[in-house]
């Protein structure tokens, strides 16, 4: 590994990290603004133009506030939990290709934190790590309501991660039919979604070749699962303000609370980015090479990626502003009796269909 | 410097030893369960290391099976612990020595 390569790797990681931070700051503001708009309010308007800097102001405030430690807290895990929340959140996004590979000199730099051949599995692994933060925070606070939140989190995370993984599997099954062999690498999955569906029927040539089209059911399952996985309304039982006062982060304040908050919004963005990558074709989109200046064309894939991601992020906000919260048993019922069977059935169905298309009927 | 497979074996042995000691020393059923997981992990590590050294993927396949069986075992075991706890409000195996419901 030469120094150049090392530099490129470092640059990729730093770029991804920076993008995530900027986007998260905007996300917090955007949620407040969008939810405010949905509620006939103005929302943040005083820090910076349109209140864009509200997140920064809040972050600074939280940074300078005292971090209160409850007397009954288990100090070690209590301190550790916020970090456990943030680290997996960052690592998940490292897997997401957020732009077309850029050629600098003779080096091809993929705009992605890391391109693992088990990318999807890594995402699943990290999102299953994220639950520890919630559980440990709830347990170590030494108080009843956070503990209830923590207990709820364990069950919720296990159930909905299964659904999320199964929805991913059907995408992988489908992707395997789109190229040479199966793959778990996100960059490869994105690459296979370029072009359009013109080869199925000429009339479909205007429809981009996104996995969304053949995998609509998986997309819906995945969407529901990621909303639950990020503990967002209507699945925010873990921090249900009305029941559990704030759930696992009730006893947290100051910077530690800010880290939980940050992790939640990073997770929203990463999960939306993964959904956009798996189903909406990632950074694929017209770049108008030649028609536009080279730099603009090079930046356009990132713009497409962000646009697609924000559509899904908006759905997160929209749901939060609209829907009531599910009850714990209803959440479990939906997960185990609704989503997981549906996902399994869909995998079976799509596996059979694509098997037919790929290998022909078994009797031939 | 390449790490010899023996080093992995030694590490696995140490893990297994610790797990076995914990199994014998602790009385909390949950912790004993975790010690079993430790020992299984030690075995897994030897399998992977041996498979790597012998260039045989079957080692990884075996680990895969062990993982699944361990998961099944944990599911049943924890269910048993929960139902015992409901009756006796203790997780100490000493208290559960009688086979009375």
């Amino acid at each position, binding site marked *: 590994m030469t120094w150049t390569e090392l530099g490129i790797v470092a640059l990729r990681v730093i770029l991804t990290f920076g993008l995530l931070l900027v986007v998260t700051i905007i996300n917090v503001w955007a949620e407040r603004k969008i939810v405010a708009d949905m509620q006939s309010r103005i929302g943040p308007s005083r820090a910076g133009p349109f209140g864009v800097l509200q997140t920064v102001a809040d972050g600074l405030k939280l940074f300078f506030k005292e971090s209160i430690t409850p007397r009954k807290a288990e100090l070690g895990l209590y301190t550790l939990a916020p970090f456990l929340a943030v680290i997996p959140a960052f690592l998940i996004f490292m897997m997401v290709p957020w732009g077309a590979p850029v050629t600098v000199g003779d080096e091809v730099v993929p705009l992605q934190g890391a391109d693992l051949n088990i990318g999807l599995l890594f995402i699943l692994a990290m999102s299953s790590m994220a639950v520890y933060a919630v559980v440990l925070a709830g347990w170590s606070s030494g108080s009843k309501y956070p503990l209830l939140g923590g207990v709820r989190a364990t069950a919720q995370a296990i159930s909905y991660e299964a659904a999320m993984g199964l929805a991913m599997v059907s995408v992988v099954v489908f992707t395997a039919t789109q190229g040479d062999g199966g793959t778990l690498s996100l960059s490869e999955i994105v690459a296979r979604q370029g072009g359009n569906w013109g080869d199925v029927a000429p009339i479909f040539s205007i429809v981009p070749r996104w996995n969304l089209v053949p995998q609509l059911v998986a997309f819906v399952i995945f969407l529901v699962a990621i909303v639950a996985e990020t503990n967002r309304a209507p699945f925010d*039982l873990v921090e249900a*303000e*009305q*029941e559990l006062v704030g759930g696992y982060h009730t006893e947290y304040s100051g910077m530690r609370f800010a880290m939980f908050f940050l992790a939640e919004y990073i997770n929203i963005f990463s999960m939306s980015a993964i959904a956009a990558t798996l189903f909406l074709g990632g950074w694929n989109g017209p770049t108008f090479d030649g028609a536009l200046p080279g730099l603009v064309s090079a930046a356009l894939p990132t713009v497409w990626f962000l646009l697609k991601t924000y559509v899904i992020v908006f759905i997160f906000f929209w749901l939060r*502003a609209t*829907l*009531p919260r599910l*009850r*714990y048993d*209803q959440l479990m019922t939906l997960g185990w009796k609704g989503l997981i069977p549906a996902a399994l059935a869909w995998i079976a169905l799509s596996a059979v269909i694509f098997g037919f298309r790929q290998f022909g009927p078994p009797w031939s | 410097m390449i790490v010899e497979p023996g080093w992995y074996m030694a590490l696995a042995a140490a893990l297994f030893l610790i797990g076995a000691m914990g199994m014998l020393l602790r009385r909390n059923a949950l912790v004993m369960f975790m010690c079993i997981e430790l020992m299984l992990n030690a075995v897994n590590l030897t399998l992977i290391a041996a498979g790597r050294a012998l260039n045989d993927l079957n080692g990884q396949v075996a680990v895969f099976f062990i993982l699944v069986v361990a998961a099944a075992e944990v599911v049943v075991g924890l269910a048993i612990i929960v139902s015992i706890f409901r009756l006796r409000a203790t997780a100490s195996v000493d208290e559960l020595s009688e086979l009375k419901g």
Partner: protein
Amino acid sequence: MTEERTWGARDTLDLWVAGTEEPEFQPTDEGAQEIGAVESEARLREQLGTAIGDDYMFDDEVADEERSIVNMGPQHPSTHGVLRLQLELEGEVIRRTRPIIGYLHTGMEKTAEQLTFSQGPTNVTRMDYLAPLHCELAYSLAVERLLGIEVPPRAQAIRLLTTELNRVSSHLVALATNGMDVGALSMMIYGFRERESILAFFEKTTGLRMNHNYIRPGGVAADLPPGWKDDVAAILEEMPRRLAQYDDLLKDNPIWLARTRGVGIITAEEAVAYGLTGPNLRASGVDWDLRKAFPYSGIDQYEFEVPLGEQGDVYDRYRVKVEEIVESLKIVEQVMDAMPKGDWRVDDQKITPPPRRRIDESMEALIHHFKLFTEGFKVPPGETYAAVESPRGELGCYLVSDGEARPYRMHTRAPSFYNLQGLPIAMADSMVADTIATIASMDPVMGDVDR
């Protein structure tokens, strides 16, 4: 006080206590109330009650090992104020609930004995802070009944107009908080948004958004402001559109239905036995509305329906409130169209202050003015009970006068206070998360409960 003080450098003057003297020492009734350190068990029992319980854990020794006790409130975000509930849980299921109240007790019944009848509305309006006009109305009706006077038709119409609008605003808060407690954040803001238009009208009419001191013995404090018809018409026009939005948002929403249907059921028999009134009673299917049964302020002149629920669950209570908003708006529309002309206070010099200009002209008027505002008007001895249908149920005022200018005893039959007894029944054997939905749907106002 002659020297001029500059604004920038003001001295800090000594604060002094004035206007009130040390309360006179009142010997208690034959020492019956004092309690010493060494007292017999019987005396302690008399003083403290039959069950001398620890305030924090009333029943530490729970019979069942699997039960645990969770203390919810008084500082819980969704117990609607300072309500405290002791929940006896079996896993996630509530087996027993004990509401513990009194955290907002301000002794308003005692205060009422210190205030004159004309000052009284300032006191009672602070009880049910979501429906202050109903409290004022009940008090005023009781005083008027003791006085034996009838208020002018315009005053009656104004009272109905404002109280029915108040019912709408109160129900809107109930819907909003019910929505929020189940997690529908926007419902919270929507409900308060529509309430705001009504409060703006109240502010225009009474000068205050709540705690109005507007309905008084003998009429109302002031005529409706110029342009009131436009405001009321605007409210009447806007509300149906907004109610349709609520219906779209919640009525058929599967999550909302799952959270509210079959949750917190109170049957009709239980509701009657436990003295529940208002929407909580009607949600159980009992057709009982004081506006129909014992009409007050001429409400029997107007057409309206009494909406009923079916099984008395959270959903029914929510629906009944929505329907009642519609019915109240119907009444408001009729009152607005048929608003009679004339005086808005009873033309009785002994009760109503004289016209302002007359103070300068007539010595008699000046004396009346002074007497009314210093010692108030005297009410003949007697006792009476006047009840109105507040947004939460039967709001009664039991008033005893001994012929002085202050009530001898004023008791308020607070609907929330009695409705709260339905909470343990509604919550028995339900999930923890349903607690919130149930409390919100019972719509207790802690100011009304504790008074």
